[in-house]
């Protein structure tokens, strides 16, 4: 997929869409960034029209997420339409509502993968995070139903202080259930900008045992190709990537911060188009505009596409760039500048460089004389380890 993804990014062809069908949810997770009230979701007819526009524009991989997607009574109708339009479909769900019949329908619909949020192997820890008693048991009951249908299931575990050391238990659980897993301590502010969820963020120091865990570093994905050839490095570098990335990040892009707005797009339940769920830069609305017009003409997307990593005002000269998983969306939300550096990314990059054996690693933001373009705000991190394989590639010539 790397070749396809990088070509799409170079030509700005839309390839991946993350479509939140609702922000309503049947859990109340302590760290959630969403407003769960329905402020006028797209209707079934509107969603089907949007799907047609996405397919016509060339979107291939489509992730349905929320909120909880199974709360939409028309979910299977939407799924059937997505199948008819030949999308590669993935889902994100808490699985509370998934029955054996649903699992069979998901397989028939050609769903490729399903990501399920699981916070711990201990029910009490999980249920305290979701605030729904019994949710751990119900969520885990759905996994064998899906696996029995041959569906690929991944347990996604956001890491917070209350479940930080549960990751080994979640790994064992995933292996027992025949699922893959991912861990991610990225906690973002609410969509309205308020910082409530941030109290559930793990400090960089507290993350150290996780970063040092040899079991996890064995499954770190390959780091992105870096341009900083001067970077001293001996040991493998943990590659930290986003919880909301398409999964096609590695080595697919040269000198651009990420896929957002280059070949990936986010659509809200209200039809708002953003480059990424984590990059709140409005590009347009699908109730008023056609997807193609937004994708090819929105000024905010044009500006984003002009950004080059090597020319970033602070990060462009950073000596530990190859250890950094800077996210433009978090740079904007935390520091107010989509082009800027932000404290959390720098702290983590320094930590990882140190672990890899670099003597006295210093980010450009912390270097003497550095002039940060922005005030340093509250920090979050952007980190994912996963057992997931990306695509294998086969070519056919006629």
């Amino acid at each position, binding site marked *: *997929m790397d*070749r*396809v993804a990088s*070509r*799409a990014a170079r*030509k700005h*062809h839309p*390839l991946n869409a993350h479509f939140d069908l609702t922000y309503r949810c049947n859990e109340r997770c302590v760290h959630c960034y969403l407003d769960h009230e329905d402020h006028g979701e797209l209707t079934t007819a509107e969603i089907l029209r949007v799907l047609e526009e996405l*397919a016509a524009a*060339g*979107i*291939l*991989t489509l992730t349905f997420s929320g909120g909880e997607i199974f709360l939409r009574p028309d979910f299977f109708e939407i799924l059937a339409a997505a*199948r008819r339009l*030949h*999308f*590669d*479909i993935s889902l994100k769900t808490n699985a509370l509502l998934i029955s054996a019949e649903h699992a069979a329908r998901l397989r*028939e*619909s*050609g*769903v*490729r*993968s399903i990501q399920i949020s699981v916070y711990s192997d201990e029910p009490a820890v999980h249920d305290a995070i979701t605030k729904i008693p019994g949710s751990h048991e119900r969520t885990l009951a759905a996994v064998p139903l899906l696996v029995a249908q*041959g569906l*690929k299931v991944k347990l996604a575990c956001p890491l917070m202080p209350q479940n930080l050391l549960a990751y080994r238990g979640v790994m064992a659980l995933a292996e027992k259930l025949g699922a893959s897993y991912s861990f991610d301590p990225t906690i973002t502010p609410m969509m309205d900008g308020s910082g409530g969820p941030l109290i559930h963020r793990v400090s960089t120091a507290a993350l150290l045992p996780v970063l040092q865990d040899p079991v996890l570093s064995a499954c770190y994905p390959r780091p992105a190709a870096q341009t900083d050839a001067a970077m001293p490095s001996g040991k493998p570098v943990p590659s930290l990537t986003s919880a909301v990335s398409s999964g096609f990040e590695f080595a697919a892009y040269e000198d651009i911060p990420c896929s957002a707005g280059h070949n990936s797009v986010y659509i809200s339940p209200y039809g708002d188009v953003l480059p990424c769920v984590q990059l709140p830069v409005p590009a347009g609305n699908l109730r008023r505009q056609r997807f193609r017009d937004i994708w090819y003409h929105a000024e905010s997307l044009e500006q984003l596409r002009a950004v080059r990593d090597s020319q970033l005002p602070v990060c462009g000269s950073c000596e530990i760039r190859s250890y950094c998983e800077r996210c433009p969306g978090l740079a904007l939300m935390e520091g107010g500048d989509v082009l800027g550096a932000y404290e959390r990314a720098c702290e983590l990059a320094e930590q990882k460089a140190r672990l890899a054996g670099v003597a006295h690693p210093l980010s450009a933001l912390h270097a003497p004389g550095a002039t940060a373009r922005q005030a340093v705000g509250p920090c979050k991190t952007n980190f994912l380890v996963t057992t997931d*394989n990306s*695509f*294998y*590639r*086969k*070519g*056919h*010539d*006629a």
Partner: protein
Amino acid sequence: MRKTIRWQKNPIVAWRAIDGETVIISPSDNVMHELNETGSFIWRQIDGRCSAAEIAGMLAAEYEVPPEDALADTEALLQQLAASALLVTAAAADGAAC
């Protein structure tokens, strides 16, 4: 008499024409397949009604390849795609027109 096989695209595979090429993803095995321009031409004609010979005829007309080469290439690709479960045999409606 050997019955003519007519193939159709497996309805659960994901695919998109991108830049003149075709990307196909099979959800069952997580494998991505890519077809070049002529492979994509053949993929477009696979509709459950055309036989390999009929598709090869169209290929030969479009790309000016000798008919026997077009047939060999078409049959080889159809076999390859079918082996990867990207195609399924169509419920043959007698006399269906290509």
